[in-house]
């Protein structure tokens, strides 16, 4: 029997929720468990509510659940926001029992009102105790903790001011949770050392954890699982960054934007990389240039400029930045420059909800910039894919000499998985394809030479005299408006997309999960995770569905999509937007229209509980063509 336990911790932003969730996950993973966890937060630095939801499993897990087994809290707001999701335990600060919703100023009034109404309509008052009593009446067990006492003890013991030790609240809640799971405290101690470099912080959190660990008895009794090989904890930003580094990226430009910037700062932090000397086989140091530019216009255009020297160059951004990059991407298309834009979609339009997720920019990515030119668009569905796709994007860009847009959504960027290191192993694999790039001096060089496949031999600046121009140009890159040349040069550029369509196996452009069934869920990006986890859980309830994940949107795997979906009783489109953008592209390219839509655009991730519910709902209400999800605080 598969174990799946969902744990959630919440608290004010700036109180270490994110760090403690990473430490907790790291500790649990040391006992041999897989984890998928996601951070939800406001566009705010300190004070607003944030929470981290994670699922622990003995098998690989790719999604979140709305049914929270252990809810770890140390403030009042988290209790109000999440007590309805708690299933087994709520850990809470007993001194907060009397706090009323109306006293929680950080809570958005619309949300506070909704919760007040829920409590009062069920005959409760509006204090923390009322919310807890309500939860208790639904079978949830309460674990009151005297945080203040533990903190003053640690403060006295280590001779530190309590204001400093206050920051251990999240670790106290985590240590109690760990004990409930039956996982060794030593793992938490080891995890602390990964995240805190300051010995004082390690010591203080260690003492607070030790003092709280014994407050409860183990309940879940998770056994240690022996693991072969190594496992790593990776979030989406880091997975893409590592893929880019492994794939030979040497210039990354960016302008700070949520949720993309962490990728670039990670690369900057690791800008000196180990590189194998092909002759001596020894490791040498080499540098990656990471440039924080004055805006996204500079970011994309610097990356394109760098790419002209033959270097693998990329930028990473989100919607507002991508909007600014549109013109530059067109120049790269016109000038056949390999450049990669990692596009972390977030809540849009405009500034939208900067720290929330959405898949609302697919059609924009596929059509970005004016005019017709090949734009290759791929989308990752999990952290391992994000790593490999970052390499794939660099290869596609160089092979087809055109901009490649790698779509990642915020739900992947800010979530993490525990991954078997072997899944990221590229040793002994030919992972780099530089296409028609040559490092040699050429006389009378035609940068845009007409060829059968539309792709011209490419040499970097410095090796031959060449010209680039965003104006229509001849084979030498010299501006011309001559009509015959226009026809041929235009066709040459677009022919590259046909070449890509011919060369890239459609099987590589989509993934199929599960056995053949007359019900198919068609999805893309991060919702693939909840879709496949729901698929497994539904199968155990006797409902068989198949999941099809589209991974490349241009060129689109039209023949395979058509073949796979032919004769299906139900084709259910699952995506995090309003207008079912991937379904629109499916209809346009493959001529297949979904029978049903499951959509979500409230900025919160789609969970496996929601997908399961939606599929069952559609099965019993087949006339309801459009199901809208609204979960998440």
């Amino acid at each position: 029997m598969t174990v799946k336990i969902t744990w959630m911790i919440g608290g004010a932003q700036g109180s270490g929720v994110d760090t403690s969730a990473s430490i907790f996950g790291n500790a649990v993973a040391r006992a041999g468990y897989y984890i998928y966890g996601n951070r939800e937060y406001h566009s705010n630095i300190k004070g607003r509510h944030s929470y981290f939801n994670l699922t622990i499993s003995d098998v690989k897990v790719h999604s979140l659940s709305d049914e929270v087994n252990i809810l770890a809290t140390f403030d009042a707001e988290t209790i109000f926001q999440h007590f309805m999701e708690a299933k087994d335990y709520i850990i809470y600060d007993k001194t907060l029992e009397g706090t009323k919703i109306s006293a929680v100023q950080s809570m958005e009034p619309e949300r506070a009102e909704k919760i007040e109404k829920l409590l009062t309509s069920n005959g409760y008052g509006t204090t923390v105790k009322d919310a807890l009593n309500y939860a208790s009446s639904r079978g949830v067990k309460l674990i009151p903790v005297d945080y203040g006492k533990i903190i003053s003890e640690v403060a006295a013991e280590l001779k530190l001011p309590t204001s400093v030790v206050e920051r251990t609240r999240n670790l106290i809640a985590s240590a109690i949770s760990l004990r409930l799971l039956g996982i060794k405290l030593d793992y938490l101690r080891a995890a602390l050392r990964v995240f805190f470099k300051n010995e004082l912080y390690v010591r203080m959190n260690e003492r607070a954890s030790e003092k709280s660990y014994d407050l409860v008895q183990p309940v879940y009794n998770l056994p240690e699982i022996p693991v072969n090989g190594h496992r790593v904890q990776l979030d989406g930003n880091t997975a893409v960054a590592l893929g880019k580094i492994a794939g030979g990226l040497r210039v990354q430009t960016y302008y700070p934007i949520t949720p993309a910037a962490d990728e670039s700062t990670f690369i900057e932090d690791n800008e000196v990389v180990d590189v194998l000397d092909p002759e001596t086989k020894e490791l040498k140091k080499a540098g990656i240039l990471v440039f924080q530019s004055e805006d996204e216009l500079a970011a994309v255009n610097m990356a394109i400029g760098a790419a002209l020297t033959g270097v693998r160059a990329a930028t990473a951004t989100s919607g507002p930045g991508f909007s600014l990059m549109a013109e530059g991407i067109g120049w790269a298309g016109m000038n056949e420059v390999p450049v990669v834009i990692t596009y972390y979609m977030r809540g849009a339009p405009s500034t939208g909800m900067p720290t929330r997720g959405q898949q609302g920019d697919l059609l924009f990515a596929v059509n970005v910039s004016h005019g017709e030119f090949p734009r290759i668009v791929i989308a990752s569905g999990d952290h391992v894919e994000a790593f490999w796709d970052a390499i794939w994007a660099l290869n596609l860009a160089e092979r087809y000499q055109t901009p490649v847009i790698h779509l990642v959504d915020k739900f992947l960027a800010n979530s993490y998985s525990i991954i078997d290191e072997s899944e990221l192993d590229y040793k002994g694999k030919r992972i780099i394809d530089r296409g028609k790039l040559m490092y040699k001096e050429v006389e009378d060089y035609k940068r845009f030479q007409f060829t059968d496949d539309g792709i011209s031999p490419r040499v970097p600046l410095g090796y031959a005299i060449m010209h680039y121009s965003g104006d229509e140009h001849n084979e030498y890159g010299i501006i011309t408006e001559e009509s015959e040349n226009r026809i041929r040069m235009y066709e040459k550029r677009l022919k590259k997309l046909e070449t890509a369509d011919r060369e890239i196996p459609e099987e590589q452009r989509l993934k199929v999960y599960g056995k053949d069934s007359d019900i198919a869920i068609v999805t893309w990006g991060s919702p693939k995770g909840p879709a496949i986890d729901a698929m497994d859980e539904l199968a155990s309830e006797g409902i068989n569905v198949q999941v099809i994940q589209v991974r490349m949107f241009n060129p689109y795997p039209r023949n395979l999509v058509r073949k796979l979906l032919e004769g299906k009783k139900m084709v259910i489109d699952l995506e995090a937007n309003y207008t079912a953008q991937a379904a629109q592209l499916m209809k346009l390219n493959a001529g297949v229209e979904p029978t049903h839509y499951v959509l979500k655009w409230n900025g919160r991730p789609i969970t496996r509980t929601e997908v399961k519910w939606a599929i069952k709902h559609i099965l019993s209400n087949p006339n309801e063509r459009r199901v809208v999800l609204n979960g998440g605080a």
Partner: protein
Amino acid sequence: MAVLKVSLSPQAYRGKKWVDWCPGCGNFGILVAESQAFAELGLDPRRVVVVSGIGCSSRMPDFLNVEGVHTLHGRAIPYAMGIKLADPSLEVVVNGGDGDLLGIGVGHFVSAGRYNVDMTIILHNNGVYGLTKGQASPTLPRNVKTKALPKPNIKDALNPIVLALASGYTFVARSYAYDTRHLKEMIKAAIRHRGLALVDVLQPCPTYNDINTKEWYEKRIRKLEDEKWDPVVKDPKEADEKKFRAMEKASEWGDRIYIGIFYQNEHVPTYEERMLSRISNYLELPPAKQAIEVDGYSLTVIDKILEKRRVI
């Protein structure tokens, strides 16, 4: 600047294409002076990258037989920086108009001063947007009515020299398009300068600017060198004072307009030099010179980074 190595005539740096600027355009003078400067510096045409934006003057690369990158309106500087920082061995020269560099691209023009990348910017400054038929540019003074304007200009002009100095440019000069000998020397000095260099080239537009004509300029132009102006910062302590004096001198825009080198300070490290504190072999092994694969096998090893993320 990059290494000298070839000996070619100025003509060897000129392209084959018919130059389609209006007769009498100041750009001709810049084209002549720029190719002469390349020849006299002995630059290998394959190692010189002329990057331009959009506008009449930005057509420059098409008329030169060197590496040419004709980019987007206002974005020549980021392209140039991307090229230079990926391969610092290339000699990078930006050409752009006043509308391009000081209007749509002014954010990059200002920011470039903070970076001090070792490259040269040649500003073709004629007070109008030529290629769109003569609208007022950011350097056209208020109340001036050039011939294509329906009404006198209602906006103030900015002074490129003062702006460059305030932004941190480490070499700032002004020249005049029809004095190709002076201009050539300015371009050579700018290219030789270690750091970001601006040459603001006053340039008549015979088609759309009927105010700042050849005659108008030639009555006013004075050479700094004739006044024993010393632009060079010898001690970092005198940098501010020299900068302020240069701003003052460059602000004169009446009976006398000065050309020449206003300011030069090589005590400020270039961006490339600053990179050495991060990546010690950045200049020997810049991004563009690194081998990343052999037969498709990646040479980059990420084991140590992964190790830090290990839970088991």
